[in-house]
C-alpha cells in the first residue's frame, strides 16, 4: 500500500536546521492497521503530513498504492488526498459553518461526484457511524464523540484506500475513545489500510503493528501478538447512541 524509502524532511531557519525525518523508511501492506508512536517532537506529525501528502519532503521516495508520489505538484497531491486518503484528526476539523450532511459532503464535492451518488454515500456513511438522524445539526450541537464519528463518516463516504488517523481519541474521554477505536477497527476489517499516529499506548496496542519513532527515525517495531485485540474493561463500555 505504502512504501517510504529513506525519506528526509528538514526544516531550516536562519539559526537551526531541524531534521524532522531522517532517512525514514516504512512499508505498510494493504489492509494493515499500523500505529506510529513516539514522544512529542519525535517527528510524528511531520511523518503524518508527508504520508498524507499534506507536505513535501526533501529526499527519498514514497510510493502510494504503487504510484510514485515523491515529486508531485500541488494539484496532483490534492487529487490523491481527495481520492485515496482519508483523514481523522485529533480535533475533528469539522467545518463549523456546515451541518453534518454538508461536512461529509466536502471531499465528495471536490471529487465532482454526481448529486445522487453523493447523497447515497453520505447517508450510507452516516448510517454506518450511527448518525443518520443528525444530518441537519451543526458541529457545535454535537458531542466530541459524535463529531469524531462525523469525521469518520466523512472518510468513509470517500471510500479511501488509506486512512490516516492523527490522535483520533486525543480529545475524547476514555469510553468514547474506545467506541471510536471500535469503529476504526471495523473499518479496517473491511480491508482499508489504517495508519494511526498516537502517543496513547492503549490505543496503539489495538493496531497489528506498532512503529516507534524518535528524532525522525524508526527505532522499534512491535508485532502485536496474534489473537483478539484487547478490549476495554467492562463497565466503561459506552452505549451506542
Amino acid at each position, binding site marked *: 500500500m505504502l512504501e517510504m524509502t529513506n525519506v528526509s524532511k528538514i526544516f531550516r531557519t536562519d539559526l537551526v536546521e531541524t531534521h524532522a525525518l531522517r532517512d525514514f523508511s516504512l512499508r505498510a501492506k494493504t489492509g494493515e492497521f499500523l500505529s506510529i508512536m513516539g514522544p512529542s517532537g519525535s517527528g510524528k506529525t511531520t511523518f503524518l503530513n508527508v504520508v498524507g501528502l499534506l*507536505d513535501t519532503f526533501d529526499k527519498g521516495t514514497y510510493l502510494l498504492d504503487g504510484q510514485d508520489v515523491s515529486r508531485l505538484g500541488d*494539484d496532483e497531491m*490534492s487529487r490523491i*488526498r*481527495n481520492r485515496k486518503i482519508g483523514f481523522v484528526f485529533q480535533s475533528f476539523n469539522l*467545518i463549523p459553518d456546515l451541518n453534518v450532511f454538508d461536512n461529509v*459532503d466536502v471531499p465528495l*464535492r471536490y471529487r465532482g461526484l454526481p448529486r445522487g451518488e453523493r447523497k447515497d454515500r453520505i447517508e450510507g456513511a452516516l448510517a454506518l457511524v450511527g448518525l443518520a438522524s443528525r444530518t441537519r445539526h451543526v458541529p457545535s450541537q454535537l458531542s466530541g464523540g459524535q463529531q469524531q464519528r462525523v469525521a469518520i463518516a466523512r472518510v468513509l463516504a470517500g471510500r479511501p484506500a488509506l486512512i490516516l488517523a492523527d490522535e483520533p481519541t486525543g480529545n475524547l474521554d476514555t469510553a468514547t475513545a474506545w467506541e471510536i477505536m471500535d469503529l476504526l477497527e471495523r473499518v479496517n476489517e473491511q480491508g482499508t489500510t489504517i495508519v494511526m499516529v498516537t502517543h496513547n499506548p492503549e490505543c496503539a496496542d489495538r493496531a497489528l503493528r506498532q512503529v516507534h519513532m524518535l528524532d525522525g527515525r524508526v527505532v522499534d517495531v512491535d508485532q502485536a501478538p496474534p489473537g483478539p485485540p484487547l478490549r476495554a474493561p467492562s463497565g466503561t463500555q459506552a452505549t451506542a447512541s
Partner: protein
Amino acid sequence: MEFGPILRAMGRNKMRFGLIVVEVALTLAIVANCVGLILDTRRELSKESGFDDDHLLSVRSTPFDKKFRDEQYIEQSIAQDLALLRGLPGVAAASNTPLLPWQGGGSSGTLKEAGTQNEPLRTQFYGGDDGTLDTLGVAIIEGRNLAPEDVQIDPNASSFNVVISKAYADLLFPEGGAVGKALQGARADRAFRIVGVFDKFYNPYAWNIGPYGLFSGTTSGSYAGGTHYLVRVERGAMTEVLKALEERMIALDDGRNVRVQTIAEVKGNFQRSMKTVVLSLNIVIGLLVFVTAVGIVGLTAFSVTERTRQIGTRRALGARRVDVLRYFLLENWILTSLGISLGLIGAYALNMVLVTFVDGARMDWRLLAAGVAILWATGFGAALGPAMRATRIPPAIATRNV
C-alpha cells in the same frame, strides 16, 4: 458549484456577511443616483450655443459724459465704434446687439402671426444689425440676412425687419414658410416682418426658451443702459485684440468706461457651479467605491483569517488551490450580488426621494447597469487579494492541534 453549502454557511454568519451586503447595497444606491445627477448636469453642460463661443468677445461701453444723453450722439457713437471694431486687426466681425451669450438671461417677448388669434409665443428678443449673424457665426438657411438699411434708429417705428432662429420659426409655423410673414406683439400698430431664418441659436433662459431667438433690425444703446457690442476675432488673434480693444475704444471717446469680456469667460462663470457639482459627485463616487472596496477587503481578509483552519482542512480533504480561490470568490460574488439586488431597490427608493427636490434626476436602467458593473468589478477586485492569501494556507494546518 457549491451554492447550497455556501449559502447555508452564510446563514450562520449573518452579521459579518450582512455588513458586506448592506454596504454594497447602499453604495449601489448612491452611485446610481450620483451618476444620474452627473448625467443630467452634463447634458446641461454639453448644450452648445451654436455660436463661435471661443472667438467671441463682449464689449460694453458705459457712458458717463452727458453728451451721451443725446440720442443722436449715441447713434453716431455706435457707428464710430462699429467702424473702429471692424477695422481692428484680428477682428473678423462686430455687431451692436444687447445679446450676451451664456449670461443666463437676456430679454424676451411674446409674438404671434399678425392678424391672427393665435396664442402669442415667447422668444428671446434682441436688437441686431447686418453683422449680428456673421459675428455669432450662424448662417441664414431661409430668406436673407438683415441688411444695413434694415437697421432702424427710431424705436417707435411701425415696422421692423427681423430674422428668427429655426427653432422659433418651427414653433410659429410648423408647416414652414416663415419668411415673408409678419409678427405682432402687444401693440397691434407695430409689425415685425420675417426676412430670414438662421440655423443655430441657444442661449440659456428661464421658461425653456433657450433655442428661440429673434433679432430685430434696430440700434441698441442709451445713456443709462450703455451700449453693447459682440465681436468675433480671427483664429489665434484673441490676445492681440483683447490687449488693444479697451484702450482704442476709450481713445475714440473717453466720456465712458469700456469693459471687455470673452464669451468663454462668461460661459465659464455660467457653468461653474454645475461643473463643481459634477466634480463633487465624481469625487463622492470615487471615494465611496474606494471605501466599499476597503470594507470588502477587510471583511474578506478577516473571514480568511478566521477560517484558516477550515481552509487547511478543505485542502487536506482534497481541495486544490483553485478550489479555495473559487470558494472565496464565489462567496464574495454571492454577497455582492445580494447587495446589488438590495441596492437596486435602494437606488429606486433614493431616487424617489431625490426627484422630489431635484428636477429630472430620473433613474434609468443604463445607470443601474453601470452601477452594477462597477460594484461587481469592485467586489471581485477587493476579494481577490484575501482570496489569493487563502490559497496559500498549507493543508498541513489541519494536523496542527489547538
